[in-house]
C-alpha cells in the first residue's frame, strides 16, 4: 500500500475504506478567526447564487414533507434531520445578504449574520446526515432541489474551513496524491501488473490513442480489483479499442463531496485531459455514484465548454452494447434485485440502463418496494461513509435498506456503485447480515459467452 500519510493514516482492514478513527477529531481546518470563517462562508454562498438557487431559497413553505423522505429522519424522528432545516444558516445568509429584501432585513436587524458557531453546529447536518441522495425533492410540494443546495452549502463550509475530519483528510489526499485512498499512479500500475499476471488478461494502460477511456474508482482499485478485471474482460469480448490512463484514472471526486470547487475542477480536468490526450470518443465512468454526477453533469462546467467526448456510466455503456447485440451473455437464471445508486439513478437519469442490462442477462428482476427513482439511499453516499462519528446513525439508516432487500425476495442483490458496495459490506458486517451486494459489471463479465 502507498499509505505514507502519517497524519491521516488509511484503514485498509475495516469493511469500509477511510482514514483510521482519529484519536482526536479536528473538524476545523486552518487558523482563521471565527469572524473570518463566517465571512468566507457567506462570500462562497453568495458566489454560488443563481436564479435557481434564489427561487428555491424563496419557495419553502415549511410543510416538512421532506423529512419523511429522508432515511436519517425516518430512523431517528429527530426534527433537526429534516432536509430543508439543514439549509437554515444559508437561508438566513441569503435573506440577509442576497434576497430581494436583504436591505430591509439588514436595516431593521431582522436577520443576524450567520456565525461560525452556527456553522459548526450545522456541520453534522450538512455532512454526517445528508448523502445528497435527493429523495427529498420527490416529496417536496415545491420541488426544491435540496440535495443541490446542500452541495452548495458545502462549498461555504469548506471555505469556512469547517469540514469533518475524515472527509477533509481523504479529499486533501485526493488532491495531493490523485486518489483519496492511496491508489496513486504507482499503485495503479502495480495493481494492473498483478491483475494481468493473476488473471491472464491484458489491461491496456497509457496507450497513446484509444477510442474508449475507462476510468476507475479508488475503491475498486484498493478493495474490489475484480472490477478492473471485469471491465478488461468485457472490453476484450467487445474487441473495443480502449485504455486506462495513469494521468487520468481516478473518477471519484472528493472535491465535490467535501465542497471544494477548485479541487472538484482539478479532479474532473485530470480525466478530461487524459481523454483528450488519447483522443477518446467515449469516457466510461466506473461503478461509482457521485463520479457520475461529477463528470457527466458537472464536468463540462469545469472544462468551460461542451466535452469533446461522450460520458457514460459503465451500466449505460453495457446496456448500449447489449441493445446493439454486441454483448453475448449466458442467462443468469436467478432472481435479482437492483439497488439504485442515488447519483446514477434518481439524480443522474440512468435508472433504466441497469434494468435493461439485467433483462439482457436473463435475470428475473424483483424490484424492492420504493425502487428506481424513489429508492432509499444505502446511507453511505455524499462522503458520509468516510465519517466515523456518523456510523451509528448510518447503520440505523442501513436497516431500511436491509428490509427493502429482504422484501424483494430476490436471490441476488446487485448494484453499480462501489461506494454503495462498500456501505453494504460495512452494514452487513455490522449487522451480521448474510447478504452480499454484487457488482453488476462483474456479474455481467462472469456471464460473457467466450
Amino acid at each position, binding site marked *: 500500500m502507498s499509505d505514507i500519510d502519517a497524519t491521516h493514516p488509511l484503514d485498509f482492514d475495516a469493511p469500509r475504506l477511510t482514514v483510521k478513527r482519529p484519536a482526536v477529531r479536528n473538524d476545523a481546518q486552518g487558523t482563521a478567526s471565527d469572524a473570518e470563517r463566517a465571512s468566507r462562508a457567506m462570500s462562497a454562498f453568495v458566489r454560488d447564487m443563481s436564479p435557481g438557487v434564489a427561487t428555491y431559497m424563496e*419557495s419553502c413553505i415549511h410543510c416538512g414533507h421532506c423529512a419523511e423522505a429522508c432515511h436519517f429522519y425516518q430512523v431517528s424522528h429527530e426534527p433537526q434531520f429534516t432536509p430543508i432545516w439543514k439549509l437554515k444558516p444559508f437561508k438566513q445568509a441569503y435573506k440577509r445578504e442576497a434576497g430581494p429584501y436583504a436591505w430591509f432585513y439588514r436595516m431593521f436587524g431582522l436577520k443576524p449574520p450567520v456565525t461560525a458557531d452556527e456553522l459548526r453546529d450545522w456541520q453534522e447536518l450538512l455532512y454526517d446526515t445528508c448523502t445528497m441522495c435527493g429523495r427529498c425533492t420527490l416529496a417536496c410540494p415545491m*420541488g426544491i432541489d435540496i440535495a443541490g443546495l446542500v452541495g452548495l452549502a458545502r462549498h461555504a463550509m469548506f471555505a469556512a474551513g469547517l469540514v469533518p475530519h475524515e472527509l477533509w483528510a481523504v479529499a486533501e489526499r485526493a488532491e495531493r496524491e490523485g486518489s483519496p485512498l492511496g491508489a496513486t499512479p504507482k499503485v495503479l500500475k502495480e495493481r494492473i501488473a498483478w491483475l494481468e499476471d493473476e488473471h491472464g488478461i491484458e489491461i491496456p494502460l497509457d496507450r497513446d490513442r484509444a477510442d474508449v477511456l475507462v476510468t476507475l474508482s479508488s475503491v475498486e482499485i484498493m478493495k474490489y480489483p475484480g472490477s478492473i478485471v471485469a471491465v478488461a474482460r468485457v472490453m476484450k469480448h467487445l474487441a473495443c479499442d480502449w485504455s486506462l490512463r495513469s494521468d487520468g484514472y481516478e473518477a471519484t471526486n472528493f472535491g465535490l463531496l467535501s465542497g471544494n470547487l477548485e479541487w472538484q475542477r482539478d479532479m474532473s480536468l485530470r480525466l478530461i485531459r487524459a481523454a483528450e490526450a488519447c483522443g477518446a470518443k467515449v469516457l466510461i465512468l466506473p461503478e461509482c455514484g457521485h463520479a457520475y454526477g461529477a463528470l457527466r453533469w458537472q464536468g463540462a462546467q469545469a472544462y468551460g465548454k461542451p466535452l469533446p467526448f461522450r460520458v457514460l456510466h459503465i451500466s449505460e455503456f453495457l446496456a448500449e452494447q447489449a441493445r446493439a447485440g454486441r454483448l453475448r451473455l449466458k442467462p443468469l437464471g436467478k432472481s435479482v434485485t437492483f439497488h439504485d445508486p442515488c447519483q446514477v439513478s434518481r439524480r443522474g437519469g440512468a435508472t433504466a440502463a441497469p434494468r435493461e442490462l439485467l433483462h439482457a442477462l436473463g435475470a428475473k428482476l424483483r424490484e424492492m418496494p420504493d425502487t428506481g427513482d424513489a429508492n432509499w439511499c444505502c446511507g453511505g453516499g455524499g462522503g458520509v461513509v468516510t465519517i466515523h462519528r456518523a456510523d451509528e446513525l448510518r447503520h440505523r439508516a442501513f436497516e431500511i435498506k436491509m428490509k427493502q432487500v429482504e422484501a424483494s425476495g430476490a436471490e441476488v442483490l446487485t448494484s453499480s456503485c462501489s461506494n454503495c458496495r462498500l456501505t453494504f459490506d460495512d452494514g452487513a458486517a455490522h449487522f451480521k447480515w448474510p447478504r452480499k451486494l454484487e457488482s453488476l459489471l462483474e456479474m455481467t463479465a462472469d456471464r460473457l459467452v467466450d
Partner: protein
Amino acid sequence: MTLLEFVRGPVFAVSLAVFLLGTAWRLYGIFSWPSKPDYSEPRRTDTAAGACRAILRHMWPRREFQRSGGAQIANAYAYHIGLFLVVFTFAPHIGFVRRLTGIAWPALPDAVTYLATAVAIVGLLIALMSRLTNGVQRLLSNFDDYFSWVVTMLPLVTGMAVLERPYVPAPVIAPALPTNVAFLAIHLLSLELLFVWFPFGKLMHAVLAFVSRARTGADFTRKGVAL
C-alpha cells in the same frame, strides 16, 4: 371621507400597489441573478414540457409518500379550494371586482360559498394545529408562518361578521353596501393587510410554487431525471 370610503379608496390603492410592486420586486430579485450556461450534453431537450410536467407532478404526492403526507396535503387542498371559492365565486366579491374593473362572472349560490368558508376556516385551524404539534413543522416554523396564517384567517373571520343577513338574490351581483358598514370596512382592511403582506412572506408561494416546480422540472428533464 367616511372610514369605508377611506379603506375603499386610498388604503386599497396603496395596498394594491404594494402587492403588485412588491411581488414584481421579489420576482425580479430572483431572476436578476446571472444564469450560468450548462455545457453538459443534455439527455433530453423538452425542458419546457418538463417544467409543465413538474408543475402538475408535484400537485399530489408520489405513491411512496402518500402514507406519510397524504392527509396533510388533502387538508391543504380543502382550505385552498375553500379560499378560492370564497374569493372568486361569492357574489359580493364579484361585485367588488366589477366596480373596480367592469369585469364580472356568475356567482355560486351563497350556501356553497358559506360551506367553502367553513371548510377554509376548519382547514386552516387543522393546519395550525399541525404546525403547533408536529415536531418537524414546529421546528421549521417562524414568524412568517404564523403571521401569514393570521393574515389569511382574518378576511374569513371579518367577512363572516359582515354577513348579517342572507345575501339574496344569488347569483345576482351584490348591491353597493351591506347593512353593517363598519364591519365591511374592517373586512376590507383585513384584505388590504393580506395584500400588503403577500410579497414579503410565504403567501407568495401562490406564485413561487409554479416558478420553483418549473425550475426543477426543466433542470431535471434536461438530465432525464424523474420529477
